[in-house]
């Protein structure tokens, strides 16, 4: 089922870290000439890299109102002045989210603290007591809005058993909820939902029948076992599992020199 020969223990190339890897792989996901609503953090770097290399005409949209900026540097915030620098429109949160709600936004690109097999995301709390949690995370921000309203949700997050869990503590942002048809039953727009998960080990997608997460491509020098070991639930496998092409020198150069020279994202290891 695996179409390339790789074993555990192969020496990993030390020339990029896992965040650089995720940003580079994420940057290749976005179709040119499509609209993408960009969440804060890693997605901003991946989108900026995509614009510089693969999707020069991708339309990046930011939830505070920025549409299609020519970003002079990595935004620190999805609402800062870089998100509307030489933009086509500097609008409002309502306008942007209403644009998502009426079906004009193809992708959203999100991070997340926890994810389950249906792509449900938790960025709210760890713990059972909502009013007095073990850890309080920021909450939805725009994530629930975007994961509800955009056509396809791409998540970028590193992979380990604490993040990829059987059941998230709190569904902040809807994935496929409890499985096929559950989004529509809940009242969410028809035909929307999780699309890909870009991790430091693999690219994951979703099985159409069950809406469960599956392995679609393995990153260089990563084995299927390693991916499964780092996941807290049973991962399905795509009919054909490919190898993710490694970050190219060009990707890494542009990422390090032009996208995030200060290391806000890729220096957070």
């Amino acid at each position: 089922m695996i179409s390339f020969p790789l074993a555990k223990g192969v020496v990993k190339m030390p020339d990029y870290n896992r965040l650089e890897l995720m940003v580079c792989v994420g940057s290749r996901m976005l179709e040119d000439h499509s609209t993408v609503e960009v969440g804060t953090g890693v997605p901003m770097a991946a989108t900026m890299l995509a614009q510089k290399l693969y999707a020069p005409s991708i339309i990046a949209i930011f939830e505070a109102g920025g549409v299609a900026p020519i970003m002079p540097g990595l935004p620190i915030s999805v609402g800062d002045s870089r998100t509307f620098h030489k933009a086509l429109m500097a609008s409002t949160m309502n306008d942007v989210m209403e644009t998502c709600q009426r079906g004009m936004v193809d992708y959203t690109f999100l991070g997340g603290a926890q994810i389950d097999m249906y792509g449900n995301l938790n960025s709210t709390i760890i713990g059972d007591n909502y009013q007095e949690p073990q850890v309080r995370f920021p909450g939805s921000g725009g994530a629930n809005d975007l994961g509800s309203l955009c056509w396809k949700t791409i998540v970028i997050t590193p992979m380990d058993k604490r993040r990829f869990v059987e059941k998230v503590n709190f569904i902040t942002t809807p994935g496929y909820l409890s499985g096929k048809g559950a989004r529509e039953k809940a009242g969410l727009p028809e035909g929307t939902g999780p699309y890909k998960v870009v991790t430091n080990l693999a690219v994951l997608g979703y099985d159409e029948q069950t809406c469960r997460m599956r392995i679609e491509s393995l990153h260089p020098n990563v084995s299927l076992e390693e991916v499964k070991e780092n996941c807290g639930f049973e991962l399905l496998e795509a009919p054909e599992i490919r190898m993710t092409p490694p970050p190219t020198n060009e990707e890494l150069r542009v990422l390090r020199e032009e996208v995030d020279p200060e290391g806000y994202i890729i220096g957070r290891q």
Partner: protein
Amino acid sequence: MYENLLSIEGGIEELFVDPDPDKARAAFRKKERGLKNKVTSVKEAVDLLIKDGDYLAVGGFGHVRIPSAIIYEIVRQGKKNLGLAGHTSIYDSDILASAGCMDRCDISYVVGYEIRGLSKSARRAFESKKIRKTDWSNCSLAWRFWAGSAGLSFVPTRVLLGTDTFKHSAAKTITCPFTGKKFAALPALYPDVGIVHVHRADIYGNCQIDGMLVSDSHLARASKRLIITTEKLIHNEEIRSNPSATVIPYWCVDAVVEVPYGSHPANMPGEYWFDDDFFKMFLEMGKTEEGTKKFYDEYIYGVEDFDEYLEKVGGFKKMKKLRAQEKLIESGS
């Protein structure tokens, strides 16, 4: 098609603000209509317009175009038991929560500083049950402001549905009478006090904002009282020469205060960039309760007003640097 009309599902957390539009109308009816000079000081605006127990809404985007001078003054005056719309609320909610000014919060985003990570001081505050919490999403709060600005009690939307964010909100489901489809009805949000920092305003409160408005035009309209801080006061003739640029009309406004650099350490679009060093210091100090206390003693209680604060954080030299960064001007040094 209508079998769902009676099966209303609802979030289980507290609804902090009454969405009754007739009660809101009664409050709006009393607002001043005349063109009165509303220019005042930060101190007086906070003293006269914010009462203990009030529910606040803060404009901008948490660390972009926030009304820092008012936030600091609220702490300095020791306001208590405030409610807050935590609508992409970052430095603003942190400062209020960590100082113990708040006892309830509608949360869509707090505790986080986007790519700068989480704030320990905010986590200490929000992980405690001293702050009662109800969760939402960013745009559900924005739509709640819209419903308030529109004089309604609710607005239907397609977010929150199916999630724990819905369960821990105070939203309800509603069935569309035309399609039979299920929507999330969000209650209108009428804050007691809105606080917005703008680029330019006249003495009556007519405001211009450069760049994204986020939700501020609706937040301002929905608020029963509204405090404006502005980088610059401008003459009414400037407002009248470009009426399309007025995003908040004077009748929403109760106080206007000129506060240059009034959003520091936040980014003020077109004017100055984030003070990265300051944020780094703040997040570092926030790691311990002692550090947090020291921060408040030094930067809030330890200064008389915002001008003195600006001097403490680096004065004109620092402001010039932040302006150059915002304007993408390479520094000569």
